[in-house]
């Protein structure tokens, strides 16, 4: 059974407490939801970076210099 650690700073005692079935279910649901949200966030960031790189490559193919492309982003 998973446990949680509670440190009482007034006494220095650490207590290991078993999670209830409800706490376990909630923790697993929270973790899954968080992982999904973070995966979506990171996929979006990656897609933006790839789109930026693709746009820069197209501009370079049109004849813009690296300095000219960089100036567009400022």
């Amino acid at each position, binding site marked *: 059974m*998973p*446990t949680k650690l*509670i*440190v009482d700073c007034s006494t220095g005692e650490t207590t290991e407490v078993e999670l209830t079935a409800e706490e*376990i279910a909630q*923790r697993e649901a929270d973790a*899954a939801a968080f992982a999904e949200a*973070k995966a979506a966030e990171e996929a979006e*960031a990656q897609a933006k*970076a790839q789109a930026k790189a693709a746009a820069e490559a197209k501009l370079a193919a049109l004849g813009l210099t690296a300095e000219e492309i960089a100036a567009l982003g400022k």
Partner: protein
Amino acid sequence: MATTYEAIATVTVGSGGAANIEFTSIPQTYTDLSVMLSLRTNRNTDSDFVEVTVNSNSSNYTYRYVRGSGSATESYTETLAFWEIHRANAATSTANTFGNINLYIPNYAGSTNKSAYYDGVNENNATTAYAYLGALLWSNTSAITSIKFEPGAGTTFNQYSTATLYGIKNS
């Protein structure tokens, strides 16, 4: 010279892992708090986020962070039901290594909103190894009496993960 930096409590996760680590009954006699974390979770990837809640409260947390990922520099701003700090190592990071985070909370016992900051690194012998700096705000004027840490996407902290709470005095 007066001692201004004191370890209040420390905890090491045992063989069964831990779903969370919580410091309670934090003394209100210091100026600032600092928590040094060395963490690894069971998330099935190379790193994990860490959720922080104070006083068992789940609202009014805001944070902004910048990071180097090994291949880019990026920044994010979010408002969630907790502070998200970074990063713990996870199941596929280099074996027997842990992510390290230092969370610093000034004026934790005061009656104004609580600003804080953290720095953290994901120790990984690979291209992707994150380094973070983050600014945090809890828009609540209550004094901080407890702090809880939970894995973001994993379900437990692994054995040998540690957390140490320090109190800092101004004299």
